């Protein structure tokens, strides 16, 4: 944000673009749409860091697990675990699969919740601190990076494929790819196969894109609000406070809701992998 110490204050466009540029391994903005040689260091740092935090919290709860009277922290985690376990029970009907699927859903929910919550930090706080240490770009919300969300949704896709093959057998799954949803007829085989491929692609892309879109948009709105405050006028200042408060409160809902939706879709997709047509 412009504080007046820089040589020249960035324009609104420059400010937004600067804030939407990842700190990656090349040191400047990525130009190609897909470039497998580049790493987004900020996304990696915050997602792994928050993953570790997730595990620490959950392991603390697991170590404190007692059949006696739980404390508040314990009870809070247990409410989440019960919620996830109930949802998993309703959607995935194989108790054997639930031993893995339910923990996946819990991890996904907790982890995404924490990553989304990075949005609550003032948009300039961490990038500003980063600049003091010579990091010129930084995006603090890993779920506002398509790599982060698609990475997770592809993980869910792999789990789906695993259970498709495990439950139906490799032959059974291939058979289903060509005979569902329209029926078993040689003429329909290509159409069925095409539909199945589109379905897998659409599920995975929409799964990742939904979370990304919500968090990206939320981040962008916070930046626009910050820009309004950056005009350093009475109107801008009051507008920043009012709009910032409203959007932050509203964003609490989005953060929790998107984490929940991602978790539910994870369960639904894995549940579908268990059902034969």
């Amino acid at each position, binding site marked *: 944000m412009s504080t007046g110490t820089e040589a020249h204050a960035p324009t609104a466009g420059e400010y937004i673009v600067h804030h939407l540029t990842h700190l990656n391994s090349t040191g400047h903005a990525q130009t190609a749409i897909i470039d497998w040689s580049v790493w987004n260091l900020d996304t990696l740092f915050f997602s792994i860091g928050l993953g570790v935090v997730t595990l620490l919290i959950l392991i603390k709860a697991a170590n404190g697990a007692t059949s006696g009277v739980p404390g508040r922290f314990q009870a809070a985690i247990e409410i989440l675990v*019960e919620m996830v376990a109930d949802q998993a029970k309703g959607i995935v009907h194989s108790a054997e699969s639930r031993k*893995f699927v339910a923990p996946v859903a819990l991890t996904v929910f907790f982890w995404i919740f924490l990553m989304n919550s990075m949005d609550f930090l003032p948009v300039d706080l961490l990038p500003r601190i980063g600049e003091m240490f010579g990091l010129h770009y930084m995006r603090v919300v890993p779920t506002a990076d398509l790599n982060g969300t698609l990475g997770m949704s592809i993980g869910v896709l792999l789990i789906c494929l695993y259970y498709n093959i495990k439950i139906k057998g490799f032959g059974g799954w291939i058979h289903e790819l060509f005979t569902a949803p329209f029926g078993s007829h040689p003429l329909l085989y290509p159409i069925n196969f095409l539909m199945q491929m589109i379905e897998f692609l659409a599920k995975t892309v929409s799964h990742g894109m939904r979370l990304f879109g919500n968090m990206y948009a939320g981040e962008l709105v916070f930046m626009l609000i910050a820009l309004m405050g950056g005009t350093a006028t009475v109107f801008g200042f009051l507008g920043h406070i009012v709009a910032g408060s409203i959007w932050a409160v509203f964003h609490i809902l989005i953060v929790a809701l998107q984490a929940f939706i991602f978790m539910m879709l994870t369960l639904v997709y894995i549940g579908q992998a268990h059902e034969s047509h």
Partner: protein
Amino acid sequence: MNLNATLVAQLVVFFILAWVTMKFVWPPIVKALDERAKKVADGLAAADKAKNDLALAEKKVVEELRKARESATDVRASAEKQAAVFLDEARAEAARIIAQAREAAEAEAGVAAQRAKEALRDQVAQLAVAGAEKILRKEINAQAHADLLANLKQELQ
């Protein structure tokens, strides 16, 4: 929104987190939850049982109280009856003793009266003889009139 190797890293991290959660987080928490659910269920069952036991015990207490009250009533009734018998007996005994005493007193009084009468009779006879002696001393010979006096004495008896 460019794609790059971050995606693969995120994918790997995703599986590592899921695996750790499955291995070290989920089982102990779910186990504790199940155990607690069982404990609560057991506790509720025990509370129900205790409630039933209490109701039974209360019923028993009421029954025992009723029995005790009944037997107390019996005891009191028989005691009263016995007391009445004792009272009657005592009353009869007292009446008998009183009658006896009265009889004895009356007999004694009769004897005493008789004795007093005889003594009086003697004294009256002597007085009469003495009086008659004084009157008749001069003209009557005691010897000649002894028969007369004896007759008089006889009559006064």
